[in-house]
């Protein structure tokens, strides 16, 4: 039966009422960034001035696709960077643009950091109306309102924006992730790296640190490094992801990961320095842009910012052939309460979900060549049933 004329009139009235209602005029993309007049979270337009000590970023939260190292396509939830995108274009830009891991956030200690999160919805799951958040995992002395834990605060609905504020109070290696229905959204991939660099950067504490880059405000140069790399542990349960895109009930307690990854890829994709080929299923958007190839020249100090956002298992990582010096854990420098340096040399670090380590590899005297960083839980050296893959990457030391 065709809809009657009165149906169309009624529908028109309802739509008009919705459009005219004041409650609808306030929804939408809304970036809050001091000094930014056109809502793109940056100061590139004439007449805009970046306030001192201020940084802004705009993330979109939605869904997308990634490709496992054995070719298996996986549906995912995730974040993408829409900083610099005009508000009117954010929904289109952000939809199906989820990246794994999400965009790395790097801020200097003490910066007024404004992070706007826009929920662009899940295109492949129109039956869902999930809100999203950003949890600044490990930030000290947090306030509930900006903690991103939805039971104790607020989360943002589809088509709207929420702005978080932090002063980035302490340097170190952190993580961020969505905390809404955390078991599901984190397994689905809403995870990323978050680093705070110390005020000591760019200064000379009286030691031999040509880079003037430090992990912490150590006062003595003991956390000096030349180059830093993300080493974020993730893993997917392909059954969970496949059921998700098929709109099926999800197994939570039976979750069992079969794609162990570093920075969103399994070996050998981890050593690809380019973005992985974009899946056609998301419209050809690059969704895996973080390489895990670690490169340095002999003599450099290499900082590995190791973190785990695995939702199921503990993982142990080793570097074959180069000692690992642990200088920080959970974004705190390893010092006793009286200031004694408690950093230590080891051959492995073990992380449960939600832990981070700062590991420095001193390559002075190291023979140039390729070294391997991998999970010593050797069953994780696979991409599902494909061997010689999984949680492994290469460290290339050149002259």
């Amino acid at each position, binding site marked *: 039966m065709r809809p009657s004329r009165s149906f169309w009139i009624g529908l028109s009235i309802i739509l008009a009422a919705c459009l005219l209602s004041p*409650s609808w005029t*306030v*929804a939408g993309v809304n970036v*809050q960034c001091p000094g930014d007049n056109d809502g793109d979270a940056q100061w590139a337009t004439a007449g805009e001035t970046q306030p001192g000590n201020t940084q802004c970023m705009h993330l979109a939260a939605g869904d997308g696709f990634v490709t496992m190292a054995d070719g298996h396509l996986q549906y995912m939830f995730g974040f993408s960077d829409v900083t610099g995108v005009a508000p009117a274009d954010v929904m289109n830009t952000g939809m199906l643009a989820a990246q794994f891991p999400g965009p790395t956030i790097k801020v200097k200690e003490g910066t*007024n950091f*404004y992070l706007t999160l826009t929920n662009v919805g899940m295109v492949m799951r129109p039956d869902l109306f999930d*809100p999203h958040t950003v*949890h600044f*995992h*490990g930030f*000290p*002395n*947090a*306030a*509930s*309102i900006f*903690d991103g*834990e*939805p*039971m*104790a*605060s*607020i989360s*943002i*609905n589809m*088509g*709207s924006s*929420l*702005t*978080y*504020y*932090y*002063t980035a*109070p*302490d340097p170190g290696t952190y993580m961020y992730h969505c*905390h*809404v*229905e*955390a*078991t*599901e959204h984190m*397994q689905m991939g809403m995870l990323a790296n978050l680093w705070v660099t110390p005020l000591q950067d760019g200064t000379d504490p009286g030691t031999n640190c040509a880079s003037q880059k430090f992990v912490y405000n150590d006062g003595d140069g003991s956390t000096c490094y030349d180059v830093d790399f993300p080493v974020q542990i993730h893993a997917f349960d392909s059954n969970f992801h496949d059921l998700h895109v098929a709109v099926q009930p*999800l*197994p*939570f*307690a039976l979750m069992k990961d079969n794609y162990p990854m570093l920075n969103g890829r399994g070996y050998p994709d981890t050593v690809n320095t380019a973005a992985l080929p974009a899946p056609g299923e998301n419209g050809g958007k690059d969704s895996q842009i973080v390489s895990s190839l670690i490169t340095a020249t002999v003599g450099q100090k290499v900082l590995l910012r190791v973190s785990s956002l695995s939702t*199921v298992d*503990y993982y142990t990582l080793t570097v074959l052939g180069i000692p690992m010096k642990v200088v920080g*854990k*959970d*974004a*705190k420098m*390893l010092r*006793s*309460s009286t200031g004694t340096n*408690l950093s230590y040399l080891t051959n492995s670090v073990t992380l*449960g*979900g*939600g*832990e981070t380590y700062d590991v420095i590899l001193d390559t002075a005297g190291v023979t140039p060549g390729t070294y391997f960083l991998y999970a010593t839980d050797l069953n994780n050296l696979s991409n599902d049933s494909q061997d010689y893959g999984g949680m492994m990457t290469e460290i290339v030391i050149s002259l």
Partner: protein
Amino acid sequence: MKRTGMKRSLLTALAAAVFLLCGTMPAIAAINGITGTTFNLTAKSGYISTAEGGSYLAWGYANGNGLMQFPGPTLIVNQGAVVTVNLTNALAVPVSIVFPGQTGVIASGGSQGMLTREAAAAGGTVSYTFTASRPGTYTYYSGTQPDVQVEMGLAGALIVRPGTPGQAYDHADSAFDHEYLFFLSDMDPNIHDAVAAGNLTPDTTSHFAVYWLINGRTAPDTMAAAGAAWLPHQPYNIMPMMHPGERILIRMIGAGRDAHPFHTHGNHHRIIARDGRMLSSAPANGADLGEQAFTTSAVPGSTVDAIYTWTGDKMGWDFYGHAGPGGETGQACVDAGVALAAGESLADHCKPFPVTLPSQETLTFGQFYSGSPFLGAMGTLPPGEGGFNPNGGFLFMWHSHNEKEIVNFDIFPGGLLTMLLIEHPSVPLMNP
């Protein structure tokens, strides 16, 4: 993704919150347990509940002739005390108790088992005596077929207090305002079902947990009142509470098969001791070797003591929402002489809230959200939202960060999860 089970969980939590907040229960010490030097425990069976509606046969230690409980009674003793634990066995299998971390334990009566002397099935008795020589957090559990019996619930906590009240150890680094037990465990219901079906020696090699518990409860039951009538065999709750600047002592025990990375939202915690030993470079140096962490694992059989505090320092805005008489913030508020809250940092006093919160129809609200970003303040919320935070506290989730462990079987949220409540300095704590 919304699930009907979540609604049920939330109703349970609401009931729990009502219990807590209406003060219908008598005030109960935060670490509930039994004190003295002689303890009479009985090993018996009962049923424990999971928050999504499951009910499973469990074995546990009861206090005297009381109900079986999981975990067993927390034994709280003073350093130096000669402690005697008399165990009577009402189960159909032999049982025993071992006390890891205690030296010179003398077992008497019963018959010799593999790890210690055991009480015979159906009425046997055995006694254990030891001197609680060192303060700290310890565990006790069955030394008889422990792969089955500990899974079934025959385990508990032992706390040895030093001479100085308000400290965990003989050093001020372990001083606390509030202390809470975090007895972390996991459960494979197949083993419980097998025992219930009469197989008293089930295969435990295929153990696969689908429940994760704190103090014997799954969330949100973790936050229900201690001694809640509908959880007769799980009397211990866990919902830490504090005021800004106070110190919480976390007494964490790895009591299951697996380790659980325990994440404290809101701030780091400082690990001060492991396995009942302060992390000291020398006895006088306190916990100087203790590290700060935002996630800590207590591996099975081990204990960790940590101090958590929260001040709100360096937030960059005044989380009390202080303003002048005309609503002024910033210097005008300072000039108006607006007083500091107790313990408030001068650095952020009167600083305005840094962003505009989105309009309400664009938000989803948490049940613990007061409607205001400020501590001790209430805001307007849409009908049916919020409600679990009547004093405008700040709440932070403390949970396993292996996130699959914050479910009850396939129902999210649940499992190894609770909420820390930070109340305004003027608000008395319900669960001190």
